[in-house]
């Protein structure tokens, strides 16, 4: 079974049609990117995967339960609870699941082994920089060891150093846990360097929402040197074409 499967999904909010007859599937362990203009329904897809909203018609299938799917929202800073310490924020998903203190502590140790936390957990989110807050939000989405990880613009408004640090952290998690990672981004280079498959969504709702489903055969591990290769530029051109830029 695929990790995620959309079958002819339609979704509207009042009279606004967001997704039109959308069908795609993501295999387990894939790392994919969703690209598209604002309003093309990228975040809606994540909300559907997470089960926060239901489709008007069609079917959304996920291999895993809600507890095994993590969703990092676009407005991550507005999801960190300022009255809770960084520790309490980090462990909130586990607290909600009803885990006891011992299990919570071992989950933190496990995460720390996988990814260096390097955050003041006694402090509060408002005492952290934007980049640290972003890291905390990502750590929090990883604490439950999700099988499917949905990241809505995880690198927005971050400087190059933090961006690199966080992308490496996500790749490390993906490799270690063999999780399925779905990423929303506006940066084509980011999508090409990080993922193995790109979905491009259309804003034109009279036709099918999905205009491109491209598997990338670029070599791993990837770095910025790859950007000079013809293979990379061909793939980029194709994505740009679908987005209507060229």
């Amino acid at each position, binding site marked *: 079974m695929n990790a995620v499967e959309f079958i002819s999904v339609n979704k509207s909010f009042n009279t606004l049609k967001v997704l039109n007859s959308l069908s795609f599937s993501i295999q387990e362990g894939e790392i994919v990117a969703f690209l598209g203009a604002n309003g093309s329904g990228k975040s809606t897809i994540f909300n559907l995967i*997470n089960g*926060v909203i239901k489709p008007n018609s069609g079917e959304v299938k996920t291999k895993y339960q*809600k*507890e095994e799917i993590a*969703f990092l*929202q676009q*407005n991550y800073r*507005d*999801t960190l*609870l*300022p*009255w*809770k310490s960084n520790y309490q924020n980090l462990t*909130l*998903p586990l*607290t*909600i*699941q009803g885990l006891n203190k011992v299990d919570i502590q071992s989950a933190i140790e496990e995460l720390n082994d996988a990814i260096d936390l390097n955050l003041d957990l006694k402090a*509060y989110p*408002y005492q952290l920089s934007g980049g640290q807050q972003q890291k905390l939000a990502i750590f929090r989405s990883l604490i*439950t060891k999700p099988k499917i990880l949905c990241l809505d613009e995880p690198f927005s408004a971050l400087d190059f150093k933090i961006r690199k640090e966080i992308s490496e952290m996500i790749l490390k998690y993906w490799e270690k846990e063999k999780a399925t990672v779905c990423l929303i981004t506006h940066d084509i280079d980011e999508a090409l360097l990080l993922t193995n498959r790109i979905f491009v969504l259309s804003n034109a709702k009279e036709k099918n929402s999905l205009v491109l489903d491209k598997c990338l055969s670029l070599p791993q591990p990837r770095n910025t040197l790859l950007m000079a290769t013809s293979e990379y530029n061909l793939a980029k051109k194709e994505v740009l074409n679908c987005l209507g830029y060229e």
Partner: protein
Amino acid sequence: MLKQTKYLGLIGFIAFIVIWWLLKVLIFKHSIFLSTPQETFVRLYELLVKGSLLKDFNGTMTKFISGFGLAVLIGVPTGYLLGINKKLYLASELVLDFFRSIPVTTLFPLFILFYGIGSEAIIAMITVACVFVIILNTAYGVFYVKESYISYLKTIGASKIQIFRHVIFHSSLPFLFVGLRTSVSFALIVVIVAEMFIGSNTGLGRRVYEAHETYLVPDVYAIILFVGIIGFVLNKIFLMLEKRIIHWK
């Protein structure tokens, strides 16, 4: 900078005492209606140490705490209930606004009819004066909870009770505290005024009224000063609690 601000406050207080003294010495020299700051402070000391002011203070504070406490006990849960259930809030908004708009002093006769002359009527008055402010502020606190917090809790599978415990309760605290601080001032006004006019044997309101009736002017000023200090301290306590509890604001 903070130290400087503290000194400015002290300078302001000293200036106030000097102006008060100058008014007495230069303008109201022969008037019996204004006592000097010195007379007032000495009289306040005497009333506290040798007089019955502490007993009156206890009487007033017992009524104040009972009335305010009851308002909190009724107001906070009701406010949360209305905040969470928008339909219930809309259904009761008109009634709440109506009762909040009635000056509680207008209801003096009703309280006496229901509770008779005594502490019970005063406590009931304080409760009524505070409860609507607490209800409405608590409900507003719930209305203004950031949708993103609730949405996040939903994505991690939180139940309604968990959403309330982890988000709504904390997020509404700033509004709740505004309601509590406003109510504290209301409660102090009501308890003093009620003690003046509803038969009460003890209490600062009763004492200031009696001092006025017997032309004990320094006593009047001393008690007014004491009530002012109580109000000031209560406000500071609430501000301190607010700063400590709502540390993220």
